[in-house]
Structures are given as C-alpha cells and as structure tokens.
C-alpha cells in the first residue's frame, strides 16, 4: 500500500476550501443582472384553482413578472417525467398523472407551486408573492395511507380509483402459501415505517441563465446527478437539445437522495430566464424545503414468517402499502418495489417469499428515495420480524440468525426475490460485532443499569443492501427508463499532471480524494498532481451521478478502466522511446521499465512525448494521452453487516439513551478507511434519527405539522454517543476494485438495531412492539399500556 493509494486514510483534498469558507454552493453564485424568484405555493392540500390575480403583486416596485402555469403551457413546456414505470399484478401500467411545474387546474398538496414572482431582490419577490391572490375551491383531502385506502375515500386523481397507483407483486405466492401450510410456528408483525425528510443542510437552490447570442441555457442546481437533470429537463420537459443546455451542480451541501430528482423549480428558472431575458435565481427556505423536497419512507406493512420446529425459516409473506404522495417523483415508484421487496430475503435462506405492494396516492408531498431507499424499509421489517420470531421460537436472537444465515459456501446465492448475491460472510461480520460490543457481558451491564434505576436493552440487526445500481439491461427490464452505467475520463496533461472527469457527483462523499487515490495508485503520479472534475455537463462527457452507494462500485470502476487504457497506451509509447516491445514494459511506481533491464522512462516523459510527438510512433498511435471508459456493472453489489445497539430507558420518563452502538460492515475492499468510517457515522445517526427522533406528521387536512426544524427533530451532537466501527471484507466478485459501497449502510442497519434494543429493554414489562420514532411519550405510553 502506498501513502496515497488504495486503502490509505488520505486527508481530503476538498477540505481546504470548505474550512476556509471558499466552497462554492449554488446560493453562493450570483450572475450579473439576476432576478430573484419566489414561488407562490398552495396553503391547502387539495383545491381547484378558480383564479389567480397577480395585479397587486405586479404593482410592487421591483417586481418584473408574475408567471403561472398558463404561461408555461403557452410556451410549450411539458410536465415532470417519472423515471421508472411499474406494472400491476394484472399487467396494467401504473397510473401516471400529469405533473406540471406550475399547477393550472388543481393543487394536490400543501406546497404545490402555483405561480412564480420575479423581482429585483429576494425581499421584494417574497413580499409580492404574498400579494398574489389565488382563489382556491377546497376539495376533500386524504393526507395519509390509511385515509387514502379507507372505504369510500376521496380521490387524489380521477384516473386512480381507490388512490391506487399500482398493485404490484414479486415472488412465488403458491410456494409461499405451501410453506405456511407446513409451518410449525409463525411470527407476525405490523410495521409502520415513519415518513422522513432528508434535510440536507444546504437547502435546494437553482439559477437559470440564457445566452441569446448562442441560444444556450445554463442551469446551476443543487443536484446529485446533473446529466440526468439535463436529460430529463431537456428532452422531456422543455424540448432543449442537450448541446444547448448546460447543467452545473457545483459544491452541493449534502443530498441523501433528496437531490437526485428533477424538480419543478429547475424548469421554472430555466424557462423564466429566457422569457424575461435575465438570469433567475431561487433558493429555498428551510420551511419551503419541507413542503417541496421529496420525502422518504412512509410504509404500512403486515408480514408473517413461517418456521419449522427448529426456527428455520420456511416462508415469508409481506403486504405493504406505500405512500407515493400526490405526484410521482422521478424515481418514486421504484423505491417501494424493486428497491424494497427484492431485499426481503435479507441475509437468510428463506426458500419461499411473496410480497405485494400497493402504491398509494395521497395529498402530501411526493415520496422518493431517501438514504437507503427501500432497503431500510425491508431491513427494518425483516430484522424486527426476526427478533419477534426468536421470541416465538424461544431462541436467542443471535442463534436464530445464525441458524438461518446464507453461509459462505452458498454463494453465489439466488434469492426467491430476483437478486443473486455474489459473496458475503454474515457469521463473520456478526462475530466481529459481538466481540467489539462485548455482547457476552451485556447482562452485567444490564444489572449495573438496573442498580441506577434504568432499563437496559440490546438490539441487533444483520442487514443486507443492494448497491452499485445496476446492470442497465436488468434495470430496464424492471422498468427503469434510463441507463445506469457510469463514465470516467482520464486526461493526462502534457507535463504529467492528471485531470479526471467523472460522471459521479460528490456532495460530501470525498471523491476528489478517493478517486485521486485510484489515479495515484494506477499511474504512480503524485496525489497532489491529480484533480477530479465533476458536476458540470459542460466539462464532463457523461454521467449518471451519485446515489445508491454507487460512486466507487460504478464510477470508480469506470475510472479504473480508463486508467487501464492509459497504462496500455503509455506502455506502447514507452516501448517506442526505449526501443523495446510493449509486452516487455513494466509500469510501476510512475516508471516504465524494460523488463529485466535498468532502461526506463518516467511516466511524465511519456506524457510529454504524447503531446510533443517528435519521437513518437505516429504511424501506429495517435498523439495525446486521454482515455474514456463507460462501465455498466454486471450485478448489484451486496454490502451487509451487523449492527448492535445498547440503550438505557428511563422508566419514569420514557427517555431512551443510546449508550453504545457497534457496526461491523462488509463493504468489500475499502479505498479510504477514514472516509468510509465517516459515512458509517453519518448513516448510523440518520438511522438513530429515524428510530428515536424524526417524524413527518400531517394532520387530517394535509397540513404538515412538523414543517420546520423547530418541529422536526434532527439528531444533535448530544443525542448520540461515539460509535465502535469496524469492517469485515469479502471483496465484491464482479468489479475489478472489489468494492461494494458504504454510503447507506448506517441508515439501513441502525433503525432495527435501535428499536430491537428498546423492545429488549422493555420486554420484561410485557412490551413487544414500539413504533418509530420511539419518543419519550411513545415509550412511556407503551410502558403504561403494558402495565395496565
């Protein structure tokens, strides 16, 4: 291992600008002569728009325009597309309602955008937006899954009877029924997966700019995938050819999924900039983010697990209703289907699985991917159910897992729900976690807690996830309407420094460091001589962006493949310079040497020869040293691991204190352990947030009750402990790096570990279930109910 190569905890290149205040986030960018946009958003959850009167707003000094959906339609702008199509059991396609960037007929949720005010300052735009009078005629509201699926519920869309978008299934129903018929014992559970808001610390923002001389549009946006936005917005909404539309996602302040999607505001600022002939800038307030960023999770599920006498799993059946919100967000339908139910095998050899999922429309903000996207929902369901199964079967939670794990010799393992796991060692990860958590001495610690009047509990989860999405042909067969490869270009500059153009996008992940490590390792160039460029469709050839823990497993592999092309060409150039055969050239530590001799040339000299080709094999080789690779993965990757949480519950108040948290994860090979550990920390805290603090609450009329950071409880520094984190490595078998991905694991493994721990703390009181978030009130009530 070199000091800056694969496996080294290199300090991050990107940090300098962030710690000195020199980062450049979208709201830090100002364009000459720009206007400020403020959106007029619906204050009600469902209403017909009888009229819009902007006359008072237009009279405000400094207001340049008030634009509505009618203006947008008159200019031929389309609706926001959905990027994944789902088919119901009966083969019919999902209901796909129109999703206009500015609503004309009826608003469908609080926050739905109705008009936009353009003005000389932010404050004027905001003042004027409050003066736009919209005549709303109220319509009946369904603000949650239960309300929307109740008998006689009002409908969000006429074309979706019963508010059902799709009624989808996966697995073998008959085989699963047969498994239940022969079961000796069955564990059952009803689970609600609470609705969450990603709350990246940087609110979304967008700036549209139009160059009339060149007929070119530029959009600056807080996106995890600028090329995807260019494709969706250019081709499906605005009819702008890709060579006339540049999308720039500069420094982006966290995403966690919420910045994957193509949002209405991106269309409106791009369109308005051309219409009024001036750049248009919009930045969300946090309260606006709550009612316009796509939300996450929000499932109601009933599940049953059939077991034989020994507690071996025979069959699993799952019935889920998933809230999609009022509109289909970009990848909304894929999350509770192919990213969820395909993970229901977990780490276990359950021979028969059947799951059905109803996608439900409600008068709420659209729901889409949030850190983990479907996989946390699957993991939470399964790991809670397995704990309950342990109690039903009279087994220890560790033993029931061991008994049912897929074993190392079973790989590759085909699950009953479409996926083929390539590799893993679940016992080894669990053993590591148990040791690190000092699990054997838990009872001693429990007694110590009891002596202090506290109830101590321990909880475990052994999760799996599917990352590195995905083979494009497989995803396409399942309904994806885009490819899922990644692109990377390596540009060796004439003096030997290296510029990498990657389609992956970093919004905290540290690609400028980890990708430079890969370059340093492959070419032997100085780490500081490598620059990573991302986030600009005007610079980067193509890319699908960063989500689903795919940067290393897909983008990193594309980069390594491009580096291999560079190495091959460099050897040919060196062979010419050294008058040897390319087959005899060894490329190591930045030097190209004729094998078995001391004749060598430095990589920098090879680069110079490529750009100053005076002594160069021009008949056989093009000058220059720049290579691009597109990589389409052969399979998903399957990170897995074991998380163990210990909590203390105060029986007087119901307050839950996470006293320790241990994670042993298998991410395959690790490029930078410091960065991986940071990803685990952040993911675990978001998982603890879901389990104990965060909840997105709508009232019956569709008002978001937890619509600010005063009401929506994010974990704080004093809410969480230090974590014990380790890895157990089984390299991925189908990519050259052997990497699997680490970004989402914490958010997937933590919620069931935490809730299993709280239930464990209270089980002697007769509490067998707790909803998330397990707030003091929730816990206290559960204790009272059990006591009575």
């Amino acid at each position, binding site marked *: 291992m070199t000091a800056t190569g694969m496996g080294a905890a290199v300090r991050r290149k990107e940090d300098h600008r962030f710690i000195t205040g020199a980062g450049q986030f979208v709201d830090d960018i100002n364009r000459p002569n720009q206007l400020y946009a403020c959106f007029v958003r619906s204050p009600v959850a469902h209403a017909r728009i009888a009229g819009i009167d902007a006359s008072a707003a237009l009279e405000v000094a400094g207001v340049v325009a008030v634009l509505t959906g009618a203006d947008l339609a008159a200019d031929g702008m389309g609706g926001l597309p959905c990027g994944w199509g789902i088919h119901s059991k009966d083969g019919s396609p999902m209901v796909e309602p129109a999703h206009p960037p500015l609503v004309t007929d009826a608003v469908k949720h609080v926050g739905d955008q109705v008009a936009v005010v353009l003005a000389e300052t932010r404050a004027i735009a905001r003042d004027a937006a409050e003066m736009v009078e919209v005549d709303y005629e109220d319509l009946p509201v369904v603000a949650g899954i239960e309300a929307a699926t109740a008998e006689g519920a009002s409908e969000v869309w006429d074309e979706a009877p019963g508010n059902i978008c799709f009624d989808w299934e996966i697995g073998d129903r008959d085989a699963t029924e047969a498994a239940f018929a022969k079961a000796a014992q069955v564990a059952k559970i009803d689970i609600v997966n609470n609705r969450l808001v990603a709350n990246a610390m940087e609110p979304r923002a967008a700036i549209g700019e139009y160059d009339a001389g060149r007929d070119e549009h530029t959009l600056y946006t807080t996106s995890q995938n600028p090329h995807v936005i260019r494709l969706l917005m250019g081709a499906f909404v605005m009819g702008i050819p890709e060579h006339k539309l540049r999308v720039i996602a500069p420094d982006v302040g966290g995403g966690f999924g919420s910045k994957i999607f193509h949002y209405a505001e991106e269309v409106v600022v791009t369109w308005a900039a051309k219409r009024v002939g001036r750049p248009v800038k919009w930045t969300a307030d946090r309260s606006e983010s709550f009612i316009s960023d796509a939300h996450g999770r929000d499932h109601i599920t009933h599940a049953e697990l059939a077991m034989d006498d020994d507690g071996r799993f025979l069959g699993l059946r799952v019935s889920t209703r998933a809230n999609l919100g009022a509109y289909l967000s970009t990848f909304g339908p894929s999350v509770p289907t192919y990213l969820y139910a395909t993970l229901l095998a977990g780490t276990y050899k359950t021979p028969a699985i059947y799951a059905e999922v109803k996608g439900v429309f409600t008068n709420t903000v659209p729901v889409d991917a949030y850190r983990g996207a479907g996989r946390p929902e699957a993991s939470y369901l399964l790991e809670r159910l397995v704990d309950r199964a342990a109690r039903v079967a009279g087994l220890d939670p560790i033993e029931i897992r061991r008994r049912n794990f897929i074993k190392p010799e079973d790989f590759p393992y085909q699950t009953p729900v479409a996926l083929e796991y390539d590799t893993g060692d679940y016992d080894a990860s669990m053993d590591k976690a148990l040791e690190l958590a000092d699990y054997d001495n838990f009872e001693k610690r429990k007694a110590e807690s009891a002596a202090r009047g506290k109830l101590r509990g321990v909880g475990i989860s052994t999760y799996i996830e599917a990352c590195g999405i995905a083979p494009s042909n497989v995803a396409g067969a399942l309904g994806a309407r885009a490819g899922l490869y990644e692109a990377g270009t390596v540009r060796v500059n004439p003096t030997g420094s290296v510029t990498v153009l990657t389609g992956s996008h970093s919004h905290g992940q540290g690609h400028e460091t980890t990708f430079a490590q890969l370059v340093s390792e492959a070419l032997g160039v100085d780490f500081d001589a490598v620059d990573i460029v991302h986030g600009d469709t005007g610079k980067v050839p193509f890319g699908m962006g960063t989500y689903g823990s795919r940067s290393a497993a897909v983008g990193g592999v594309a980069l390594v493949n491009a580096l291999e092309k560079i190495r091959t060409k460099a050897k040919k150039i060196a062979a010419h310079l050294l008058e040897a055969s390319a087959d005899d050239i060894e490329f190591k530590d930045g030097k190209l040497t004729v094998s078995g001799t001391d004749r060598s040339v430095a990589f920098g000299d090879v680069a110079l020869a490529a750009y100053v080709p005076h002594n160069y094999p021009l008949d056989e080789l093009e000058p220059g040293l720049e290579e691009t690779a597109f990589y389409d993965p052969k399979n998903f990757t399957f990170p897995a691991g074991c998380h163990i949480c210990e909590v203390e519950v105060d029986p007087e108040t119901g307050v839950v204190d996470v006293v320790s948290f241990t994670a042993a994860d298998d991410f395959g090979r690790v490029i930078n352990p410091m960065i991986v550990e940071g990803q685990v920390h952040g993911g675990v805290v978001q998982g603890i947030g879901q389990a104990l603090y965060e909840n997105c609450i709508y009232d019956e009329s569709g008002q978001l009750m937890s619509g600010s950071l005063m009401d929506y409880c994010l974990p*704080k520094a004093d809410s*969480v402990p230090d974590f014990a984190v380790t890895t157990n490595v089984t390299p991925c078998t189908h990519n050259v790096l052997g990497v699997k991905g680490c970004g989402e694991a914490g958010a997937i493994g933590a919620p069931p570990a935490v809730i299993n721990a709280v239930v464990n703390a209270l089980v002697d009181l007769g509490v067998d279930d707790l909803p998330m978030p397990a707030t003091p009130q929730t816990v206290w009530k559960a204790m009272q109910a059990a006591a009575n």
Partner: protein
Amino acid sequence: MSITVSLTLNGEAVSAEVEPRMLLVQLIRDKLSKTGTHVGCDTSQCGACVVHVDGRSIKSCTMLAVQAEGADVTTIEGVARDGELHPMQAAFREHHGLQCGYCTPGMIMSALDLVKHNPDPDDGEIREWLEGNLCRCTGYQNIVRAIRAGAESMRSGK
C-alpha cells in the same frame, strides 16, 4: 428606505446600504460577498450562519444588519491568517470533521468561541456546546474529535 451600516469585517472597515429588515447574514453574503457563512434554516436551529460579533459567536440569521453598526465581525474567511490555517481549521481537516462542508464554517466559528470560554473541553462539554449547530453528514463524532484536537493545538500554541 435604506440605512447605511458601517462595521469592521475580518479586520477591514466596510459599509453598505441596507434595508432596516435585512439580516446580518444577508449583509455578509449578498452585500459584502463573503459567502463562507451559510444559511441552513429559517428558525435559528442549524447554526450554519455562526459568525463572531465583538468576539462572541452569534447566529447571523438572528441579528439585523443595522444592529451590527460599529461592530467587529469575523467570519470564516477571517480565521486563517497570512495563508496559514488556524489550528481549529487544520483539526477539522485532520480528523475528518466535515463531509459536504455546508455546516462547517458555523461549526468552526462555534468551536472557537467554546475554546475561548473553555480551553480544555471534554467530549460531553463539546457535544453540549454544539446544541445549536446541526450537521447531517458526519454523525458528529469526528467533529467532536476535531474540536478536542483543535483546542489542544490552541493550548499548546501550535
């Protein structure tokens, strides 16, 4: 109506015409073009906008620009001196106390004020002090580690 406000920003005398309702953070970002100070919420929860006013850390979204008349304001851009990182900045890098970097300026400004009050804070004191600073990326552990290390460097005068 606009009012002229004059103050010292990172050691330099500056003045600007502002509306009476303009927030200090808007003055710093929009009028004085120092964009290292960030806005992450609208309810004074997140702490991304923390700056020093007359030596005390404050949330610049919670103070009017006109209230800073005559004040000595330091933002993240004023922390490094002569191209040398402040030990607290260096500690954030060394201990991976940041990921996306959005909350980072506020964290560092807040940490500097903590160390001023308490040169040798323990983990619990650091976590408690950060009550008004939210981070969504790091899980806080490495921020706490960074602040402890930064405080140590400052004590030893490194």
